């Protein structure tokens, strides 16, 4: 048999996604175990969870003939089995090899995912390490409670089947022809488990004698019969219904209690009903759906306008009234649709946060620090794309907090703090924005030292006023403190320029608060979704532009005469401070000279560490806009971050505030550079 042919890519992808989920829960559980094992006995359900996770991964891997993954999860399962049976106590050596095992499994999955096959040396090394560990323990008695008819089943399955009657469960053997009776989704163990009521899948393996003809020429016919051994609390007929298979393929395994008895004893039907029905969808499809919805919204607006015109012209016509009514109904439905489509992409930020448990643990171990990671508002929902985009950024911030924020236990004790440092990841909503905060109770930033260093490096002049904005700008500026390692503030710049760039790209902002010796908080503010943002629509020289509302601090009505020109730059007075002002049309290059007369509006925007007044002719309004990328089609367009399509079908460029700041910086260095773009 040639397994590769049978491993349809999408099925392998399913496998990876599912195995990855189990790995993540395994990682979390191991961390939980590590936190408590010294003081408390590990709770049974924790061990049980880990046992089942490895067992399921093993089963999945076996289906695809990923031997290394199967073998590794098998030996890990054996360790949990030993914990479970109290044959072995949890100790540091065990935890270390188990963590190694999780990493090796993850590597192997990544390799499979990258299409490199699963052969990864670390998996085999991990197997050897765990084998060595298991060998070091004398195997104690293992009373043979194997019920009859269970020949060929693994240790876990046999043990669970033995316990089944006590839990009101019975064991069944299901023959599932996957590919015909079961569509792809049901390959997932969890899908089968949902069909079993309170039960669980113990083993699943292809029936080898059923296989031959399948893997030959016709690869579309990938139907294989699997034998699934499982526990359940519901009747054969119910299982048959749930899985859409014939009852004749279901057999009760002898000696595990008969149906009537277990039926009578167990089962509130609500248990099965409450099982969540979740399907996986490629996010690309959601994007397409979103685009389509955007088009419908645009079309709807056009329809509304037309209906409005017709209505005005034919007031008396009853059918026109009906048409208007129908159009209104449609509008409402479209609103609902758009709302739901948006919601499809939202996932709890916990998915992101929980990945950092491991990061923090590893850094803490390696650096000899004691750090706990706590979450606040982890149920906050974010656009899935945003979560993907922001992961690396947050990783930098968490690493920075561990490396440079939290002190060693000795330093902390000397400073009168608890030995263990705390890093808090918090998330929440603020209007149409979400914030993600990285808070540490470490030593804080020495603002004075940073400032001195920046002056020393010639990044700022010594007469510049210290403000938070300036400090953020300095530490997030590329290269700061990366080359020369100076104590205390070294490394804070590492990766921070990446943070800055990423946030600008996502339309977000970053702020920080620090208390020297008291800790530092970085707050990222991000749009709720990457696809939609609130924007201020303005018009300049008869053209419409959208300015992200996130960047807008305030809007002022001005007379252009109030704006002074100092050393070639325009400034205006804002409550006693001077605010640099740019003329939008001039800056973007479609106006030769800034206009100097007439009324206008100054939109005060704040970019990364900058505050700037943008001079425009008129304000049009504020609205939610769907952001369309321009970079893919036009390349870089400095000062323009994308475009949006309004309800009337017109296209409006979206201003990239940081880009505008860069344009001005470029211009003051070299007057001739900017301005060529548009006629």
């Amino acid at each position, binding site marked *: 048999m040639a397994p590769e042919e049978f491993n349809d890519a999408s099925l392998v992808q399913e496998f990876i996604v599912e195995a990855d989920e189990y790995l993540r829960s395994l990682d979390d559980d191991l961390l939980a175990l590590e936190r408590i094992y010294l003081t408390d006995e590990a709770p049974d359900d924790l061990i049980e969870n880990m046992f089942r996770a490895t067992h399921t991964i093993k089963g999945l891997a076996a289906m695809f003939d990923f031997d290394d993954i199967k073998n590794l999860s098998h030996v890990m399962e054996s360790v949990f089995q030993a914990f479970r049976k109290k044959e072995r106590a949890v100790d540091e050596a065990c935890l270390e090899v188990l963590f190694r095992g999780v990493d090796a499994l993850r590597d192997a999955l990544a390799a499979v995912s990258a299409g490199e096959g699963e052969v990864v040396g670390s998996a085999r090394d991990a197997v050897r390490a765990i084998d060595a560990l298991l060998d070091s323990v004398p195997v104690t008695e293992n009373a043979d409670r194997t019920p009859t008819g269970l020949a060929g089943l693994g240790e876990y399955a046999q043990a669970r089947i033995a316990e089944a009657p006590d839990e009101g469960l019975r064991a069944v053997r299901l023959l599932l022809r996957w590919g015909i009776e079961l569509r792809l989704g049901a390959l997932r163990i969890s899908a089968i488990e949902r069909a079993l009521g309170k039960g669980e899948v113990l083993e699943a393996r292809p029936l080898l004698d059923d296989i031959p003809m399948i893997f030959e020429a016709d690869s579309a016919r990938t139907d294989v019969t699997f034998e699934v051994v499982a526990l359940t609390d519901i009747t054969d007929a119910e299982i048959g219904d749930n899985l859409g298979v014939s009852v004749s393929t279901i057999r009760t395994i002898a000696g595990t209690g008969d149906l009537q008895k277990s039926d009578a004893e167990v089962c509130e039907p609500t248990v099965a009903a409450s099982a969540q029905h979740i399907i996986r969808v490629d996010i690309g499809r959601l994007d397409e759906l979103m*685009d*389509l919805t*955007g*088009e419908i919204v*645009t079309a709807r607006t056009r329809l509304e306008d037309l209906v409005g015109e017709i209505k005005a012209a034919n007031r008396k016509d009853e059918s026109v009234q009906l048409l208007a009514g129908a159009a209104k109904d449609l509008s409402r439905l479209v609103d609902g649709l758009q709302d739901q489509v948006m919601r499809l992409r939202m996932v709890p930020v916990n998915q992101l946060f929980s990945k950092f448990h491991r990061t923090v643990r590893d850094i803490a171990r390696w650096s000899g620090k004691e750090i706990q990671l706590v979450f606040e508002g982890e149920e906050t929902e974010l656009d899935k794309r945003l979560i993907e985009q922001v992961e690396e950024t947050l990783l930098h911030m968490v690493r920075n907090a561990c490396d440079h924020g939290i002190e060693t236990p000795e330093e902390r004790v000397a400073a009168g703090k608890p030995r263990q440092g705390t890093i808090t990841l918090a998330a929440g909503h603020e209007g149409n924005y979400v914030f993600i905060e990285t808070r540490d109770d470490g030593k804080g930033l020495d603002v004075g030292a940073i400032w001195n260093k920046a002056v020393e490096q010639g990044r700022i002049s010594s007469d510049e006023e210290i403000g938070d904005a300036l400090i953020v700008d300095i530490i997030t500026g590329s290269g700061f403190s990366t080359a020369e390692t100076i104590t205390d503030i070294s490394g804070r710049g590492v990766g921070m320029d990446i943070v800055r760039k990423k946030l600008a790209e996502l339309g977000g902002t970053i702020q920080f608060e620090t208390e020297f010796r008291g800790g530092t908080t970085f707050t990222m503010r991000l749009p709720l979704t990457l696809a939609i943002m609130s924007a201020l629509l303005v018009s300049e020289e008869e*053209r419409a532009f959208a300015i992200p509302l996130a960047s807008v601090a305030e809007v002022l009505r001005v007379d252009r005469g109030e704006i002074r020109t100092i050393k070639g730059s325009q400034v205006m007075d804002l409550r006693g401070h001077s605010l640099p002002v740019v003329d939008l049309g001039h800056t*973007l*290059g*479609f106006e030769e000279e800034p206009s100097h007369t007439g009324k206008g509006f100054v939109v005060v925007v704040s970019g990364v560490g900058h505050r700037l007044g943008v001079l425009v002719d008129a304000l049009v309004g504020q609205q939610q806009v769907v952001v*369309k990328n*321009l970079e*893919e*089609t*036009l*390349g*870089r*367009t*400095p*000062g*323009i971050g994308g*475009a949006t*399509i309004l309800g009337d*079908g*017109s*296209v*409006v*460029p979206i201003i990239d505030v940081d880009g505008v700041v860069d*344009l001005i910086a470029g211009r003051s260095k070299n007057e001739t550079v900017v301005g*060529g*773009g*548009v*006629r």
Partner: protein
Amino acid sequence: MARKRAPKVLDEDLSSVREARVSDADTLQLVTLLLAKDEFGFHIGKVQEIIRYSAMKITAIPNAPRFVEGVINLRGRLVPVVDLRKRFGFTAEALGKTARIIIVHVGARTIGLVVDAVVEVVRVSSLEVERLPDLAAGVGTEFVEGVCRVERGMVVVLDLEMMFSQEETDAMGSLAG
């Protein structure tokens, strides 16, 4: 370029003609078009659709590459529009009633090309490549795939991939720098 008669402008959509391409693999099908007074052609396979210039509103995008007129809203998608006449440095007169935007696929991108008129769809058996220099006057030879003979004279066949890959990247690079 000598012509026997003035080209007639083709107006209908191309979907019916596309079918033919599949059935006859040996010949090439070209969409021919006018830029100023000269006739050019593209492979029909690159063309998605042809729309009236007057039906679209082009929104200028500041700091876009010089030859990009702006973007249009094509059923909810933003498609950049390039004026081919400006691209080739022809004197661009005001666009008349026959002006069209040809939506083409270049690599993974969709681009709209403004032309003075679309002439016809022709089937030719092969392209000549030797006589390029004199015929491709005004257009960089690097953008020309070959020439072919039609009833009216010669048509210069443009290589869209070349036009919108390297050259454009260079242009954008210099703009960004």
